[in-house]
């Protein structure tokens, strides 16, 4: 497919611009979820939509026209099942063609699948999908940058459920031991796993305390408040600093579509035509409220 519709968008500047982009991302996500016949991890996509816009359209120093620039910030999607949300956020910045994503997602031969693959889609930084793997990879990238005297940051986006994996805490210790102030992890604290609410079966609290006790710089965020996310990005510690940072972003799984919000039924699914209209209408009503 010819990538004729790729337009490289400059970084957004204002909170309002970022909010508009997040709205557009949710519309595009719902459209894909309504047209693709297979399953989309829509709940966890909607919970990270604002964070991915804040990163790809504001925080990350990346250039869609030079994806291998050594100076670029790195972004590792540790919760790889939110890949489609990342693909679309990246497409909106000019990395990929949204139309191509919609037309080919999950199809035979497509580079756009349920979990990102660096070999098939070089614009992403790492192949992920199995939970607990992305943060260790990000630690390796941050360590490499340090050794080479490179000044960029390495970002990772984790799900809160994913922190049940021991390898996340191995990485947390390794990052602190290596004093990787150039590493920033965002945790999508949506309080839900696939089939349960986090505190019901797995007690993650005290969540901030866990990261703090591992020696990380801990920042609390409202993961759906663009003003909050923007100001956190603006005030991140210098990449030269010695403590890795975790931004614990309080989020709502399914955010933006009332019948999906905090619903176990909408961890993943497919919207039919009727549900798509219902979801779009629900999303539209959130715009009116916030306007």
């Amino acid at each position, binding site marked *: 497919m010819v990538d004729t519709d790729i337009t490289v968008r400059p970084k957004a500047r204002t909170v309002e611009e970022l909010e508009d982009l997040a709205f557009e991302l949710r519309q595009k996500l719902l459209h894909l979820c309504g047209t693709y016949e297979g399953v989309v991890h829509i709940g966890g996509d909607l919970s990270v939509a604002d964070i991915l816009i804040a990163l790809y359209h504001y925080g990350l120093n990346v250039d869609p026209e030079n994806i291998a620039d050594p100076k670029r910030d790195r972004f590792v999607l540790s919760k790889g099942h939110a890949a489609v949300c990342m693909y679309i956020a990246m497409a909106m910045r000019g990395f990929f063609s949204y139309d191509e994503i919609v037309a080919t997602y999950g199809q035979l031969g497509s580079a756009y699948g349920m979990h990102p*693959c660096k*070999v098939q889609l070089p614009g992403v930084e*790492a192949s992920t999908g199995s939970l607990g793997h992305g943060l260790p*990879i990000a630690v390796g990238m941050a*360590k*490499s940058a340090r050794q080479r005297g490179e000044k960029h940051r390495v970002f990772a986006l984790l799900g809160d459920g994913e922190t049940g994996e021991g390898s996340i805490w*191995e990485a947390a210790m390794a990052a602190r031991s290596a004093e990787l102030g150039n590493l920033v992890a965002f945790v999508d604290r949506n309080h839900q796993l696939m089939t349960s609410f986090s505190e019901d079966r797995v007690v993650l609290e005290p969540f901030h305390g866990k990261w703090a006790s591992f020696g990380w710089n801990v920042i609390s965020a409202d993961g759906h408040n663009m003003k909050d996310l923007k100001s956190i990005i603006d005030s991140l510690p210098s990449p030269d600093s010695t403590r890795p940072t975790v931004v614990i972003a309080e989020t709502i799984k399914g955010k933006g579509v009332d019948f999906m919000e905090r619903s176990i039924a909408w961890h993943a699914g497919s919207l039919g035509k009727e549900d798509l209209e219902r979801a779009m209408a629900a999303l539209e009503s959130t715009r009116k409220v916030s306007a």
Partner: protein
Amino acid sequence: MPVTFTFSEFLSARSVIGDTLAELGDEYPNLWTITPEIGATLGEFRAKFPDRFIDVGIAEQVSVGIASGLAYEGNIPVVSGMLPFLSMRALEQIRSDVCYPNLPVKIIGTHGGLVGNGGSTHYAVEDLALMCALTNMTVTSIGDPLMVGEVLRQSMKMTGPLYIRLAVGKSDMVLYQQGEHDIQIGKGIIARPGYDVTLFTHGTTVAQALEAAEKLAGIGHSVRVVDMFTLKPIDADLIVRCAEETDGRFVVLEDHLAYGGLASRIADVVVDRGISLKAFERLGIPQVFAGFGDDEQLRDKYGYGLTSTVSALIRAMSA
């Protein structure tokens, strides 16, 4: 260093690895070493390149995850540890974070086979079966200490992952004179010529194979010993040639489960290439969790010691 060793001298594979990596670190400024807490092997490298050495403590999964991240950035990471843990605790990281993106990470370690007397938690006996199953992975098992250095040197040019299995590496018999064999990853070595039967082996049992061949030479038998140090990709052409040149008689000896390791790799070639054999004997670890004892005692107990090897060769030649 142009030092000549002779067969039956002993040398520490660990120190060869340390010296080789320290030497390669000059030539390759992107070479890193990572260890889940067995720094001894990497002491020389660590002293010379402290900014390219990481000891993550007792944490195999993150050692491989970090190696993956380093390799994505264009580095050549060597992860060194104990194989029972690296090959199993970090198996999924090796598969999904290294093999899937086809990154040039080298996994090298000790305790391949019933060595070290640590009991079954500490014996890597199924590691080759696991590693051979992984797409993009090159799998080696090395018995000669100097060969480890040569393989490491060659591996710097590889674009994908590599697994190097050693026994214990504290004191290993020097099997080959320097320059005696053309060592190439992917090619088996005819360690001893012979025409009555081929004894295929790898790693720590190569020395035992040569000893068995020597014993049988004393009573007029000509045993070919093939050091199949690369299990994947397997040197299928050499297997075909050995079948033709040693009368279709094969014995496979390995310090690994008898099913799933080299014997199985060879059996696959035999079937796929339609080779007709007169004899095929497997000597290796049976499907049991082995107990304690020194290396030689355990090999005898589980039926792949020197005596068993000689008997199997005789059976194969008289089949």
